[in-house]
């Protein structure tokens, strides 16, 4: 039994050749970042070509799942009808540890919105949205 934060009616990711590996890792509750096989540059979201050296060769580097809040907002008016009942919710941009500067947009959950601050430490938690789909969200890191 997994914790659910967002409803079933959320849009599902349409994985493609570039992103499938990321979602497959996520389904196993592994937070990864795409890394160029040739120059080592990391990138997120996943993409087809290294933006530094234009290599097509890339793999997935496993991350510790911790990071720091780069910036955040508290969404109080949803665009997706599915999220109307979830308001307010916190959207964060997280600087991921050991990710070579890559950043992810996600949610900070299990937190009072008024307690969120830039630079606060966070760690990943996983929400299973289906048998083959898990989504990383973040919670304040244990002190």
């Amino acid at each position: 039994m997994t914790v659910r934060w967002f409803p079933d009616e959320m849009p599902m990711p349409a994985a493609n050749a570039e992103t499938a590996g990321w979602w497959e890792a996520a389904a196993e509750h592994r937070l990864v970042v795409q890394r160029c096989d040739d120059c080592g540059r990391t990138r997120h979201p996943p993409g087809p070509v290294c933006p530094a050296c234009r290599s097509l060769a890339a793999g997935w580097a496993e991350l510790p799942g911790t990071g720091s809040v780069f910036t955040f907002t508290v969404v109080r008016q949803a665009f997706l009808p599915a999220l109307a009942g979830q308001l307010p919710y916190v959207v964060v941009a997280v600087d991921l540890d050991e990710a070579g500067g890559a950043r992810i947009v996600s949610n900070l959950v299990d937190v009072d919105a008024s307690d969120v601050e830039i630079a606060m430490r966070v760690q990943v938690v996983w929400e299973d949205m289906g048998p083959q789909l898990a989504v990383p969200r973040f919670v304040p890191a244990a002190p």
Partner: protein
Amino acid sequence: MSAARPRRAVIAGVATSDYPLLPHLSEHAVHGQAADRALADAGLTFADVDGLATTGFFPMYATGVAEYLGLHPLYLDETNIGGASFEVLVEHAAHAVEAGAAEVVLVTYGSVQLSQMGRRLGTGGGGGAGFAPGPAIYDALWGNTLVGCYALAARRHMHQFATTAEQLAAVAVTMRQHAATNPQAQEREPLTVADVVSSRLVADPLHKLDCCVISDGGAACVVTTAERAADLAKPPVYVLGAAHATTHHLNVSASADLTVSPAAQCGPVAFARAGITPADVDVAQLYDSFTITVVLTVEDLGFCAKGEGGAFVEDGGLGLGGRLPTNTDGGGLSACHPGMRGMFLIVEAVRQLRGEGGATQVPDARIAVAHGTGGMLSTGATVVLGREIP
């Protein structure tokens, strides 16, 4: 635009359509109204047009407008980089007439977004729906919204530079002061900083009144050469220089630094091509999707140092007689924001340079800058306009 420019691009005609609420018109009818008025303003007719530049939210958009307007242009451009598109279309049109690829380019925009959406404030859109395609899912899956992206930038700017909600609010207050003198403006009631910061939060730290309105409306301009414009109806306004830039697509996670917009790249290039500096600019028309957009833009175009945008815009800094009179028609925050507002920036800049600014005319305005911002702070485009060649 090369150093040697025997043919000089000018804007010979401008117009806005009716706005902000046009339930009786289709999108293409709005194009038609704006285009007809812009050509009349120039003293030209549709028969003179040999180039068309326009864009919307569907592929092959310009060909549709050409068909509806009965045009068979030899020059066609529908470059779309979001809200900055129309600055790019004017830049391209200037290149085209200077290269001799066209003589008279009609640049036109039309939208009935408000009537189609049935809501008045631009606060929620952009989260994606259903199966989010491609990389967009990497923001959409977490319920981030369009205003949420700009809120992430605003929060970061506040953190790094101690920018305040009251400073952001000052942008909306000044735009409303300008809108009060524009009989067409969507919102004209006086506004205070306290009103803005006490309006409901949509995505912290942005309030409802930090967000642009959503409107119906359109606008158009006519780009031709100085030679062709010499005997036309209105004094020509020169396209002195232009440039555009992009930092990322639609995922703010892919932006290196959310506090720096593409204006930092294209602004200095446009000014250099125009042969001017920011200090030479008399009046500015800056894309104001959200209050933070304007703060970032005045910094990145070099009107003040990075981090000083909050202080620059407060205390009437963007008002008449202020540090940089901006959005003299009331802007997207109060006057009209029909999906993509870029064409309105050009129209108002030209009106100011002609002395047609009415109650918000900047005295003896000689050089104006129009800067569009598109996507999630993803794109920027700067056009420098002048009454004469400096």
